[in-house]
C-alpha cells in the first residue's frame, strides 16, 4: 500500500464540514466544485496557512502541528491563485524561499527557468514588466526553488488565457512526471482536472460529495450534484 502523506479526520474549518480524506504519495489530486465550497481553504490546511477549527490532520502519521511550520511550508509548496511577486526582479523571487533557509546556490536559477519555460534573459527583468502568464510561471518557479515534496496549486491558471493555460499545464505535467511530485490542485476547470489528475474530489457545500479516479468519475457520476456540475461546466 502506498505511503499515506495526509490523513484528515473530521476536519471543520469555516465552510468545510466534517472532511475525512487520505492522500497517498505520488497522487495527483484535483479538487473541484462550485465557488464558495471551501476548495482554497482545504488547500491552505495542507501547509498550515490555515488550521482547522476542529478535527485532526496527520502528516506522515504524525499530527501536523508537531512539525516546524516554516519547514512544513517549504516541503509543501503552494502556488497561489495570483502570483503576488516580490520586488524587484525575477531572480529576487527565485532566491526568496531558499534564502530563508540559507540554501540558495547560484546556478539554480537556470534550472528553475527551464522548468517553467522562461528564457534566461528574464532573470534580471523587473517583475512589473512581465505578462500575466509569465508572472504565474515565475510564481511556480519560486515555489519549485524550495524543492517541495508536495505541490499545492490554487487555481494557478484561473487568470490566464487558453494558450497560457495549455503551456503551463504542459510544464506541470513534465514536472509532475520528472519529479514524481505529489500534487494537490484546486481547479474550476473540469477539462484541466481530467488532463492533470489521477484522483478527483468534488467539493460542494463544504463537503466531499464524491471522489474517484480521473477521468472515470466524470463519465459515471454517482451523485446528481456532480452530474449538474458537469453539465454547467
Amino acid at each position: 500500500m502506498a505511503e499515506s502523506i495526509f490523513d484528515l479526520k473530521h476536519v471543520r474549518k469555516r465552510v468545510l464540514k466534517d472532511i475525512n480524506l487520505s492522500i497517498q504519495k505520488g497522487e495527483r489530486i484535483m479538487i473541484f466544485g462550485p465557488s464558495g465550497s471551501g476548495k482554497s481553504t482545504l488547500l491552505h490546511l495542507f501547509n498550515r496557512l490555515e488550521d482547522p477549527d476542529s478535527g485532526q490532520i496527520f502528516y506522515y502519521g504524525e499530527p501536523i502541528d508537531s512539525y516546524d511550520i516554516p519547514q512544513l511550508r517549504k516541503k509543501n509548496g503552494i502556488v497561489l491563485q495570483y502570483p503576488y511577486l516580490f520586488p524587484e526582479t525575477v531572480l529576487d523571487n527565485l532566491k526568496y524561499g531558499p534564502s530563508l533557509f540559507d540554501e540558495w546556490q547560484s546556478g539554480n536559477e537556470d534550472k528553475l527557468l527551464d522548468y517553467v519555460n522562461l528564457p534566461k534573459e528574464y532573470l534580471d527583468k523587473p517583475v512589473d514588466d512581465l505578462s500575466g502568464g509569465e508572472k504565474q510561471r515565475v510564481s511556480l518557479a519560486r515555489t519549485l526553488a524550495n524543492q517541495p515534496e508536495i505541490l499545492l496549486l490554487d487555481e494557478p491558471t484561473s487568470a490566464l488565457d487558453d494558450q497560457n493555460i495549455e503551456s503551463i499545464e504542459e510544464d506541470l505535467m513534465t514536472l509532475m512526471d520528472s519529479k514524481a511530485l505529489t500534487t494537490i490542485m484546486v481547479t474550476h476547470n473540469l477539462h484541466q482536472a481530467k488532463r492533470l489528475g489521477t484522483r478527483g474530489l468534488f467539493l460542494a457545500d463544504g463537503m466531499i460529495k464524491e471522489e474517484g479516479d480521473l477521468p472515470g468519475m466524470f463519465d459515471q457520476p454517482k451523485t446528481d450534484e456532480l452530474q449538474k456540475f458537469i453539465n454547467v461546466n
Partner: protein
Amino acid sequence: MERDVSNFSLLVLIVFVMIPFTISYFYQLGLKKDILWSSIRGAIQLFLIGLILTYLFNLKPLIGIPIMLSVMITIATFHARKKGKELPNVFMTVLVGLITIEIIVLALWLSFDMVSFTPEEIIPMSGMVIGNSMVAMGLSLERMKSEFETNHGKILAALSLGATPKQASHLTVRRTLNAALIPNIDQLKTIGLVQLPGMMTGLILGGIEPIVAIKYQLVISISIFSSVSLSAIIVSMVMYRFFYNQNMQLVDFQKIKNG
C-alpha cells in the same frame, strides 16, 4: 521686557476667524459650525492650559513636572491608539513607547545641561516631543494597517514559502518606517527656510537673542527628529507581530480592517 497682547487685540482676532467663516458661507462648504466650534474650543483650551501651566510652574519641579508629563503622555496615548484600536496591545505599546522616548530625551537634555529641570523649560519642550511622537505613532499605525492590507497577497506568498512573520513583514515594516521618516527628514532639511520654527519664533518674540533662540530650537528640533524616528521604529517593530497568530498565520484581515 514684559510685552503683552491686549484683550481688545485678542477680540480683533475674530476678524481672522470671520475670513474662513465667510468663505464657507459663500461657497456653501458646510464648515461654518466646525470653524466656529474649533476656534472657540481652541481658545478655551489654550486659556485653560495657561491657567494650569501657571499653577504647575509655581509647584516644586519634582511635583509639577511628573504630574504634567503623566497627563500629556496619557492623553497622547489615548489619541494615538485610536488609529489602531482594532489591534491588540496597541494601548500598552504606545504608552510604553512614549514613556521610553520621554525618559531618553529627558536623560539627554539633563545630562548635557541642554535644558534645566524647571517646569518652564521641561513642560513645553516635552509637550513638543510627546505631541510629535503621538502623531508619528498614529501615522505609523495607520500606515502599517494599510501596508498589511495592500500587501496581503505578498505576505501570504512569503509565509507560504517558509518565511517567519518577521521575514514576511520585512517589506511592510520598511515601508512604514520610510513613510514615517521621510516627511520628518524633509522638514529638518527646510527648517528655517520656509518658516521659522515655532519655538524659536516664540523665544525671539519674547526678547531672547536669535542665536540663543536658535540653540534652543536645535535642541528641540533634533530631539523631535529622534523621537519621531523612535516612535515609528517602536510601533513598526512591535505591532507587526499582532497581525499574525502563534502559528505564523495572518489573522483575519477583514476583522482587522473593519475593527
